C-alpha cells in the first residue's frame, strides 16, 4: 500500500513543479496533471479496497515523524479512504472532462485544480483542527480560482461573493479554533475525543463556532445564495467539481467532528439538513437555469445527507449504508448532470431539447435523474428505503414526512426537465459536439450507477432477495436497440412467454390471475408491435421494464421486493407514456402522482414494519400499531395507480396521447397493478376503522363516485382515446367498489371485471388505435361512416362495447349480475345504485364511440382509408375469441375465481351446476341466455331476410330529408357535442374541479417558491448578512436564547 502521505506529496509536488516549470511543460501539463490525479485515485481506491476487504487496517501518518501536538497526523481509515476515492476520482474525471478548456487556459489552471484536490485530500485526512482550517482556506482560494478561470462579469462576481462567504466562515472557524485551544489546550481531534470535553466550561461556544462554520460551508438554506450564484455562473465541468469533490469533503468534515459535538448539535444538523433539502427542492420549482437548478439540487442532496448524519442515532447499523448510498447517488448523478450541462451549455432548461441529437446523452440524462430520485436498481433506492424504515422504527415521523415531501418536490422539477429534454422542439443551433474526453467520464460514471446499484442491492439487508433477472432482461434491450422491430418484438414476446411458462407451476390464486393479465396480456399487446417499422428506439427496454415491474409485484414476498417492483414498473411506464407526441405534461403528471403514491406506499410499509422482525408482506396483517393509518397510506398510494377520483387527473392525457399499442398496455394492464396492490392490502389488513367508520365503507363511496364521474366525463369527450381513458377511470371505480364490499361476491365481481376490463379495454384501445393509425386524428366528429372501410375493426369495437356496457348475453353482464347480488347482500344500496347508474351512463359513451366513428356519414377524405394493419387486428381477434368463450361458458372464468376466493371468503359463494350459477338471491345461466338470444336473433333475421329479399342498397345521401338533399358529410354527421342536452342537465358534475384543485396546489407551491427565493438577491452584502443572521439564529435557537 502506498502511504497516504504521497497523496499530498504528489499533488502538491506536481502543482509546484508545474508552477515553477510552467512554460516548458505547457504542452504536457494536462497529461501530467491527469497522471497525478490518477495516481492519487489509485492510492485512495486501493486503500479503500484494502480496508473494505479487511486486508488492510487503518493507518495514521505523522508528518515529520513527531507525535502530535508537535506535528500533524493524517488518518487513513475506511471512511477517509472512501471519501478520498470520491474526491480524487472526481478530480481525475473532472479534469479529463475539462481537459480542452484547461489546456486553453494554460498551466495555471492545472495548478489550481491540483491544489484544490490536494486541499480536499488533507481536509479529509487531517486530525488537526488548525490544519483543517488552513486547508479549508487553501481549497477555498483554489475554488475561487477555478470559479474565475473563465473570467467574465458573472464568474468574477460569483467568485467574489464566494470569497466573501468563505472568508467570513473562515473567520468564525478560526475564532472557534482559538477558543477551543484556549479551553482544551490541544487542537488534535483524537486527543479531544479521548477526554470528556464537555467538562470544560464555555467550550460550547467554541464548538458552536467550529461546527457552524463547517455547516455554512455546506451551503444550508437560507444562507446559501452565494453558493447558488457560484453554481449558476460556472460552466458545468467546474460546477461538477464543486458539487461532488468539495461537497463530499466538507460533508466528511462534519462527520469527523461529530465525536466532539454536543448532543444538541445532532438536532441542529437534522433541522438544518432536512430543512435545506426541503426548501432547496421547493425553490428549485421556479428555477430555469440548468446549472443553478443543479445547484439547488446539490445543496438539497447535501442537506439530506447532513440530515441523515444528524439522525444517525436513529438509524442504527444501517446508517453507513444509508449515508453512503445517498452520497454515491448524489455524487454520480450530480457529476453526470453537471457534465451534460457543460456539454450542452444552455441557459434555460427548455433548451435542453438539443440533447436529443445525441441519444447516449439523453440516456445518461434520464439515468442520472432516476438515480438521483432513488429509483431502483440504483443505490439511493436502498438508502431511502432503509432511511424511511429506520425513521419509522424510531418514531421520527416528522422527518420521515418532510423527506418524502421534499423528494416529491425534487421529482417535480427533475421530471419536468427530463420531459422538456425529451419532448420540446429543439432550438436551432450548432450541432452538439462531444469529445472523447467527455464521453469517457460520462460513460464511466454511467456504468458506475449500475455497479454501485448492484452492490447496494447486496449490501442492503433484504436486497439480495430481489429477483433482478426480469429487469436485467429489460435493460439488456438497450444493448440490442439497434435491431429492427420485428426481431426485438419476437425476443420480447419469447422472453415474456418463457417467463410465464417458468412461473406457471408456482402460480395460484390471485398471482395466477394477475400474472396472466400482466404477461399473457403483455404478449397480446406486444403483438401489435409488429405493425411498426424501423427500430422504435427505446420502446422495448422501457416496455419490458414495465412488465418486469408488474411481474415483480406478483412475485414479491417482501415489502421491499414489492416496492422495488413498483418503482421499476413506474419508471418503465413513464418512458412508455412519454413516447406519445403530445405526452410531455401528461407523462409528468403521471410521474408525479406515481411518485407521490409510491412515497405513501413507502411510508405505509415503514409504519407496518415497526416492531416486526421481518419485512414479508404478511407484516401488514400483524402490524401492531397505526393499522388504520397504514391502511389509508397504502390505499391512497395504490389508488393513484387505479386513478380513483381526486387522483385521476393524470390518466386521460397519459393514456390518450400514448402510442397505438402503448395505450392498451398502460390502460388495460398497468392499471391492474393498483388493483393488485389493493388486493394485497385488503386481504391482509381486512376491515380497518377510523373511530367507528369503516375505511372500506369510505372506499366504496370513492369507488362509486369514481365510476359515475369517470363514465360521465367519458360521455362528454370528443377525443376517442380520451373517452376510453375516462372509461377506464370509471371501470376502475367499479373494481374499487367491489373490493371495498369485502365479500365473496364483491371480490368475485371485482376480479371478474378486472379480467374483462383487460379484455375489452385492450380490444377497444387497439381497435381505436388502428383507426387513429389510419386517420391521423383522434377527434371522433372528424370520423364517421367507417364501417364500410374498416369492418373488422367495427366488429371488434361492437363486441368491445357490448362487453363494456355489461349487456347480456356477453361476458360483461356477469359483473353486473354479481354486483347486484353483492350489493343486496352487503346492503350498501346508495353506492350500489350509483354503480348501476354509472353502468347505464356507460351506454352513452359506448354508443357515441361506435356511432360517431363507424356509423353516420363517411367523410370524403376517408373514402379510400384502409382497414387497420393486420398486426393491430390480430391481437383483437385473439381477444374476441377469449371474450366469446367467457360469454358462452361463464363458469370458465367465474368458477376458478370463486374457488380462489373461498379460502378468504368461505361464505356467500355462487353455486355452480354446469353453467348455471345460483346466488342466495338469484340465478343466471350464461349458456342458455346465449342460446335463446342467438336463436331468436337468427329467426328474426331469417324472417326479415325472407321478407326483404328484394331490398337494394342506396347511396350515402339517399335519406329522407324534407325538401332538401344533404350533400356534405360534415354537416350531416351528427357527432360534435353529442350529448348536449345531457351536458346541460348534469354536465356540472363533470366540471374539472379536481384538475382545478391540483392546479391550485401546483400554482400555490410555485408561488411560494417564487416568494421565498427572492431572498437570493444576488447582492454579496445581503448574502453576508444572511450568513451572520443564520449563525445567530441557529445559536439562539439551539442554545436557549429564545
Amino acid at each position, binding site marked *: 500500500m502506498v502511504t497516504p502521505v504521497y497523496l499530498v506529496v504528489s499533488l502538491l509536488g506536481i502543482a509546484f513543479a508545474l508552477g515553477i516549470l510552467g512554460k516548458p511543460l505547457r504542452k504536457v501539463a494536462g497529461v501530467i496533471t491527469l497522471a497525478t490525479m490518477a495516481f492519487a485515485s489509485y492510492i485512495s481506491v486501493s486503500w479503500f479496497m484494502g480496508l473494505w476487504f479487511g486486508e488492510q487496517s487503518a493507518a495514521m501518518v505523522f508528518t515529520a515523524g513527531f507525535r502530535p501536538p508537535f506535528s500533524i497526523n493524517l488518518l487513513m481509515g475506511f471512511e477517509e479512504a472512501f471519501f478520498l476515492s470520491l474526491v480524487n476520482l472526481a478530480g481525475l474525471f473532472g479534469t479529463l472532462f475539462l481537459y480542452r478548456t484547461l489546456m486553453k487556459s494554460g498551466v495555471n489552471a492545472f495548478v489550481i485544480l491540483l491544489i484544490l484536490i490536494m486541499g480536499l485530500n488533507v481536509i479529509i485526512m487531517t486530525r488537526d483542527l488548525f490544519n483543517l482550517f488552513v486547508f479549508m482556506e487553501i481549497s477555498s482560494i483554489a475554488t475561487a480560482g477555478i470559479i474565475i478561470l473563465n473570467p467574465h462579469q458573472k464568474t468574477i462576481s460569483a467568485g467574489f461573493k464566494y470569497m466573501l462567504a468563505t472568508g467570513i466562515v473562515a473567520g468564525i472557524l478560526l475564532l472557534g479554533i482559538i477558543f477551543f485551544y484556549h479551553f482544551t489546550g490541544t487542537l488534535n481531534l483524537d486527543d479531544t475525543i479521548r477526554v470528556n470535553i464537555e467538562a470544560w466550561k464555555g467550550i460550547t461556544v467554541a464548538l458552536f463556532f467550529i461546527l457552524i462554520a463547517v455547516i455554512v460551508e455546506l451551503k444550508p438554506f437560507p444562507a446559501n445564495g452565494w453558493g447558488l450564484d457560484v453554481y449558476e455562473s460556472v460552466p458545468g465541468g467546474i460546477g461538477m467539481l464543486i458539487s461532488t469533490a468539495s461537497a463530499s469533503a466538507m460533508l466528511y468534515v462534519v462527520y469527523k467532528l461529530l465525536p466532539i459535538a454536543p448532543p444538541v448539535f445532532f438536532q441542529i444538523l437534522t433541522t438544518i439538513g432536512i430543512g435545506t433539502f426541503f426548501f432547496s427542492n421547493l425553490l428549485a420549482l421556479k428555477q430555469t437555469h440548468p446549472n443553478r437548478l443543479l445547484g439547488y439540487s446539490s445543496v438539497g442532496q447535501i442537506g439530506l445527507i447532513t440530515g441523515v448524519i444528524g439522525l444517525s442515532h436513529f438509524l442504527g447499523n444501517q446508517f453507513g449504508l444509508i449515508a453512503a448510498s445517498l452520497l454515491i447517488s448524489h455524487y454520480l448523478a450530480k457529476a453526470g448532470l453537471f457534465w451534460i450541462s457543460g456539454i450542452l451549455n444552455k441557459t434555460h432548461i427548455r433548451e435542453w431539447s438539443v440533447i436529443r441529437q445525441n441519444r447516449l446523452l439523453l440516456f445518461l440524462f434520464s439515468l442520472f435523474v432516476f438515480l438521483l430520485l432513488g429509483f431502483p436498481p440504483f443505490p439511493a433506492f436502498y438508502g431511502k428505503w432503509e432511511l424511511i424504515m429506520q425513521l419509522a422504527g424510531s418514531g421520527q415521523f416528522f422527518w420521515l414526512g418532510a423527506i418524502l415531501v421534499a423528494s416529491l418536490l425534487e421529482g417535480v422539477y427533475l421530471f419536468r426537465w427530463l420531459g422538456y429534454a425529451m419532448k420540446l422542439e429543439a432550438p436551432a443551433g450548432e450541432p452538439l459536439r462531444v469529445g472523447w474526453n467527455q464521453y469517457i467520464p460520462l460513460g464511466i460514471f454511467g456504468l458506475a450507477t449500475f455497479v454501485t446499484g448492484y452492490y447496494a442491492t447486496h449490501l442492503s439487508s433484504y436486497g439480495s432477495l430481489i429477483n433482478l433477472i426480469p429487469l436485467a432482461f429489460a435493460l439488456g434491450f438497450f444493448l440490442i436497440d439497434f435491431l429492427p422491430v420485428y426481431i426485438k418484438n419476437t425476443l420480447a414476446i419469447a422472453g415474456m412467454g418463457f417467463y410465464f411458462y417458468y412461473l406457471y407451476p408456482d402460480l395460484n390464486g390471485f398471482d395466477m390471475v394477475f400474472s396472466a393479465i400482466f404477461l399473457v396480456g403483455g404478449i397480446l399487446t406486444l403483438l401489435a408491435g409488429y405493425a411498426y417499422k424501423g427500430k422504435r428506439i427505446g420502446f422495448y427496454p422501457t416496455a419490458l421494464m414495465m412488465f418486469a415491474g408488474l411481474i415483480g409485484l406478483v412475485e414479491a414476498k417482501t415489502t421491499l421486493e414489492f416496492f422495488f417492483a413498483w418503482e421499476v414498473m413506474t419508471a418503465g411506464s413513464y418512458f412508455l407514456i412519454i413516447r406519445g407526441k403530445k405526452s410531455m405534461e401528461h407523462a409528468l403528471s403521471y410521474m408525479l402522482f406515481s411518485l407521490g403514491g409510491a412515497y405513501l406506499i413507502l411510508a405505509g410499509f415503514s409504519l407496518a414494519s415497526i416492531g416486526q422482525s421481518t419485512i414479508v408482506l404478511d407484516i401488514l396483517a400483524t402490524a401492531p400499531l397505526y393499522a388504520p393509518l397504514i391502511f389509508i397510506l397504502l390505499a391512497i398510494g395504490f389508488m393513484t395507480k387505479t386513478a380513483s377520483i381526486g387522483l385521476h387527473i393524470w390518466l386521460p392525457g397519459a393514456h390518450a396521447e400514448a402510442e397505438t399499442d402503448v395505450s392498451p398496455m398502460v390502460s388495460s394492464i398497468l392499471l391492474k397493478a393498483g388493483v393488485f396492490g389493493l388486493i394485497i392490502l385488503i386481504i391482509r389488513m381486512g376491515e380497518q376503522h377510523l373511530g367507528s367508520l369503516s375505511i372500506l365503507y369510505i372506499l366504496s363511496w370513492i369507488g362509486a363516485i369514481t365510476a359515475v364521474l369517470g363514465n360521465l366525463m367519458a360521455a362528454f369527450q370528443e377525443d376517442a382515446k380520451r373517452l376510453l381513458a375516462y372509461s377506464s377511470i370509471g371501470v376502475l371505480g367499479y373494481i374499487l367498489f367491489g373490493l371495498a364490499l369485502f365479500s365473496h361476491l364483491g371480490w368475485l365481481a371485482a376480479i371478474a371485471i378486472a379480467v374483462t376490463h383487460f379484455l375489452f379495454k385492450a380490444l377497444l384501445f387497439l381497435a381505436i388505435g388502428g383507426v387513429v393509425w389510419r386517420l391521423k386524428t383522434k377527434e371522433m366528429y372528424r370520423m364517421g361512416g367507417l364501417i364500410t372501410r374498416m369492418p373488422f375493426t367495427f366488429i371488434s369495437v361492437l363486441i368491445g362495447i357490448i362487453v363494456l356496457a355489461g349487456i347480456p*348475453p356477453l361476458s360483461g353482464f356477469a359483473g353486473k349480475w354479481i354486483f347486484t347480488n353483492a350489493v343486496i347482500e352487503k346492503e350498501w344500496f346508495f353506492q350500489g*345504485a350509483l354503480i348501476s347508474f354509472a353502468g347505464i351512463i356507460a351506454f352513452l359513451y359506448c354508443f357515441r364511440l361506435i356511432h360517431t366513428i363507424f356509423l353516420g356519414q363517411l367523410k370524403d377524405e376517408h373514402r379510400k382509408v384502409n382497414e387497420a394493419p393486420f398486426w393491430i387486428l390480430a391481437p383483437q381477434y385473439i381477444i374476441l375469441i377469449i371474450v366469446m368463450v367467457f360469454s358462452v361458458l361463464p363458469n370458465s372464468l367465474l368458477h376458478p375465481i370463486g374457488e380462489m376466493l373461498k379460502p378468504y371468503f368461505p361464505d356467500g359463494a355462487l353455486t355452480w351446476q354446469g353453467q348455471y350459477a345460483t346466488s342466495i338471491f338469484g340465478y343466471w345461466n350464461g349458456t342458455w*341466455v346465449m342460446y335463446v*338470444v342467438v336463436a331468436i336473433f337468427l329467426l328474426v333475421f331469417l*324472417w326479415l331476410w325472407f321478407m326483404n329479399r328484394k331490398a*337494394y342498397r342506396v347511396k*350515402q345521401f339517399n335519406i329522407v330529408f324534407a325538401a332538401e338533399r344533404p350533400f356534405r358529410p360534415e354537416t350531416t354527421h*351528427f357527432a360534435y357535442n353529442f350529448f348536449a*342536452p345531457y351536458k346541460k342537465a348534469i354536465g356540472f358534475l363533470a366540471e374539472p374541479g379536481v384538475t382545478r384543485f391540483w392546479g391550485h396546489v401546483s400554482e400555490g407551491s410555485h408561488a411560494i417558491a417564487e416568494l421565498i427565493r427572492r431572498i437570493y438577491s444576488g447582492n454579496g452584502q445581503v448574502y453576508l448578512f444572511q450568513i451572520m443572521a443564520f449563525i445567530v439564529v441557529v445559536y439562539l435557537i439551539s442554545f436557549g436564547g429564545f
Partner: protein
Amino acid sequence: MENIWIKIGYALLTIFIVLNYGLLLQGLFRKIGARVGRRHGIRIWQPWVDIIKNYTFRSRIYHGVMYYLGPVFRLTGGIGLLLFLPVIYGSEMFSNFSFTGDLMLVLYFQFFGVLGMALGAGESGHPYSAIGVSRGLSQVTAFELPLTLGVLAIGLQYHTLNINEIVAAQQGSILNWTFFTNPFAAAAMLLSFLGAMGRSPFDVVLAPQEIPIGPPTEFNSSLLGVLQLNRAIFPVAKLILFMNLLFGGATNWGELIIKTFFIYFWSVFVGIAFPRFRVDQSVRWFLSIPLILGVIAIILIKF
C-alpha cells in the same frame, strides 16, 4: 329434448298472444288519445293494417349491414325480454325461458335491443336518427337511477332477485302487492316506468315535430315492419315485468290483461295530461322527485 320443443311451442304461443294484445293496446290507446283530444281517431285495427302494409311495400331500400341488423337486434331484444320473464305465475309453460336468469338479466337485457337499434339507425346516416338516440340514451340513464333504487328496495324486501319468488311473495291478498307493502319503491318505479314507455312527457326521443320519429326515421318497408312488431311486444313485456314486481303478477291471461291494461293506462293518462319535456328537463326531473322517492324507499326498508 321433447321438453324443449314444448317450451318452444309455448314460447311461440306467448309471442303470438302478446303481439296481438300489444297491437290491440296500441290501437285502443291511440283511439282514447284521439277522443280525449276531441278527434275521431284511427280504426282500432289500424296497427295490424300498418304492419301488413309495411311488409308489402315494393320499394325496399337499406343503408348497410348494421342498418339491416338494427331492427333484428330490436325485435330480438323485445322477444328475448318477454321470454326471459315468467309471464303467468304458476304456469311452467308460460314461464318460458325465465329459468335462464333473474330480474337483473331482464333489466339489462332491455338494452340489447335499444343499443342494436341505435346502431342500425346510426348507419342510416340520418342526423335525426342520431339526435333521437342521443336523447333517448340521455333519458334512459336518468330514469334508470330511481328504477334501480326501487329494484334494490324490492330485492331487499323479498331477499331475492328471482321474479317468480317476488310474485309468490305477493300472493294471497291485494294488500300483499309490493305496490302497497313498499309504496315508495313502487312510486319511484312507476315514475321511471313513464320514462321507459316513452310517451309524453318523455316522448322527445321520437319528437314528431322536430326530428320526425327519431331513431327509426330512415326505416322503411319490412324493416319498419319488424320495428312495429317490436313496438307491440316490447311494451307488453315491460308491463308484465312491472306487473310482476309491483302488482302481484298474474295467474292467468285474463288477470294479466286486466292488470297490464291499467298499468299501460297510467302512462297514457299521464301522457295525455302533460305536455312534453325537453331532454335536459326530463333528465333533471327523473333525478329529482323519483330519485328522492327511491332514496326514501331504501331508507325505509333498511332501517
